[in-house]
């Protein structure tokens, strides 16, 4: 089921023509209307006319969160404020927030893409959507809200928190779709269990979760505990908000709405564009945004592009489930390593997520990686040979995933430091 079949299933060649036309128009507009971009273009010695193919996108400069901060609050807006109908801001953990503005058309596009996303993830015009994303400056709440109204579903704008009320409404109003963060979904499931409420007795069928990274394991847990299908949704306020990319019924990667966004994957160190299928930092260019168009935005999210056709029939490229943030990346002997890669190996080997810690050292001129794994009851064996087998399996899998020969150390349960329940995952002892 599609919301807008002609766009969602557009033949790729046609889709790329559309992208190029829209890209050219946007590049010309920001060059003329935004001094920030004009300066950047001039620094790179590029004119809007130099963009003649989608591949030419690579010639254009990147935009980062720092650029948005430096131009706080409205410096990157391309239209006068009277044309802006909504302003959102993302919470800045350091200093000022990043501010984005939407024109009436931007809100319409967002609603359209969110309606497509809801539909792809199994919501329907007759659905009752309990929207437990926060309403406010954060884009989650209102993003889902407008999309649900566009879809014609019944939206319950309950916002986040107040779990007792969430559960009462879920029961009494017969919510069929839940939208919130995956961690809140798990929390809700636990409270339901405590209260002795059988999820089968609820009408909930679908959950659409995002705004934080989550693993395949968490998906399975949520699906089992809430007796629903759980879908991953991706978005960020700098680009639009939720609905930039969405999982379809195949649950194998998130389609990015390419008639509005162009995704690229780069090596976060060399900034080189990587071929499809290779993991790196996701970069997104908006090609229809009016309020604050963004050129090659470095999201810091780690993923890869999947370009094989999807069984659902949508032609838009998929990005794989997010693998983490570039901020967490380690470079060991010139190889990029993400803690999430190690995590997925440990999950695979042990079925439950063990606590672990990565210790990077420099012996002479050689970097070494030690992976400390806390032994759990399921991993423990009183036979040394079994423990040695376990170490060997982890070592081999880490080697095949990262190419690094790590030392595996099994350590006593609860011996690794934790901050707020999570281990301190990385200790870098290299003195450079």
């Amino acid at each position, binding site marked *: 089921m599609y919301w807008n079949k002609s766009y969602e299933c557009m033949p790729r060649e046609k889709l790329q023509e559309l992208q190029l036309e829209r890209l050219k128009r946007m590049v010309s507009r920001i060059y003329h209307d935004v001094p920030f971009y004009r300066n950047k273009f001039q620094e790179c010695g590029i004119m809007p006319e130099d963009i003649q193919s989608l591949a030419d996108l690579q010639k254009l400069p990147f935009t980062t969160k720092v650029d948005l901060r430096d131009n706080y609050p409205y410096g990157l807006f391309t239209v006068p404020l009277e044309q802006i109908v909504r302003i959102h801001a993302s919470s800045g953990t350091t200093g000022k927030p990043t501010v984005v503005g939407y024109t009436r058309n931007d809100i319409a596009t967002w609603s359209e893409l969110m309606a497509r996303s809801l539909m792809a993830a199994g919501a329907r015009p007759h659905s009752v959507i309990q929207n437990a994303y926060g309403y406010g400056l954060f884009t989650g709440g209102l993003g889902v809200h407008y999309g649900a109204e566009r879809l014609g579903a019944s939206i319950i704008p309950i916002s986040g928190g107040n779990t007792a009320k969430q559960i009462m409404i879920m029961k009494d109003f017969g919510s069929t779709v839940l939208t919130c963060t995956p961690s809140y979904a798990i929390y809700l499931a636990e409270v339901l269990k405590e209260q002795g409420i059988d999820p089968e007795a609820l009408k909930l069928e679908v959950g659409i979760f995002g705004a934080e990274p989550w693993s395949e394991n968490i998906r399975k847990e949520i699906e089992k505990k809430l007796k629903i299908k759980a879908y991953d949704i991706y978005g960020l306020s700098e680009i639009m908000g939720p609905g930039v990319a969405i999982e379809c019924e195949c649950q194998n990667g998130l389609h990015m709405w390419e008639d509005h966004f162009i995704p690229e994957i780069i090596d976060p160190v060399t900034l080189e564009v990587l071929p499809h299928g290779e993991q790196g930092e996701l970069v997104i260019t908006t090609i229809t945004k009016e309020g604050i168009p963004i050129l090659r935005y470095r999201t810091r999210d780690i993923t890869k592009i999947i370009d094989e056709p999807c069984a659902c029939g949508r032609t838009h490229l998929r990005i794989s489930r997010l693998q983490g943030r570039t901020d967490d990346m380690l470079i060991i002997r010139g190889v990029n390593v993400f803690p999430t890669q190690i995590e997925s190996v440990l999950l695979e080997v042990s079925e439950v997520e063990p606590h672990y810690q990565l210790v990077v050292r420099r012996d002479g001129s050689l970097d070494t990686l030690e992976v400390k794994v806390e*032994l759990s009851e399921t991993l*423990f064996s*009183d036979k040394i040979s079994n423990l040695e087998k376990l170490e060997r399996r982890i070592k081999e899998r880490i080697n095949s995933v990262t190419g690094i020969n790590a030392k595996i150390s099994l350590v006593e349960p609860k011996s690794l430091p934790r901050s707020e329940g999570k281990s301190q995952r990385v200790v870098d002892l290299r003195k450079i």
Partner: protein
Amino acid sequence: MIRQVSIFMENHEGRLNNLLKILAENDINIRSLNIAETMDYGIVRLILQETDKGLGVLKKHNIMSSLTPVLAAEISDQPGGLSILVDALTREKINIVYAYSFLPKKTDNAIIIMRVDDEVLDKAVETLKAVPGINLLDRETLLLK
């Protein structure tokens, strides 16, 4: 079947001492102890006089332990005594994973604790019961020895 308490422990000074102190302070007697070690860690295997109490104390002190079923056999304490036992198991192609001695207070015989793989455990019990001169001990009898 004998219940052996197995504990994973990192291989550095003070770790074993910590465990022994906890057991001592709670008045739990260790009847037998065996340590298998690697470079980085070891497994401490204990037969406790009061297993359930011991498990409770360890749990309270956040020490992860697990129960492993092992066999205890009383054999004569003279040359060739153990050989009779191992012979019988070898004939049945049963491999011993590890074995260690238990020091009895009230008999002149020797007692050996051993672990075989779970899937041949029943077979090992049957085999040893059939051998004259080997007395397979159950939990209560062992701890009275």
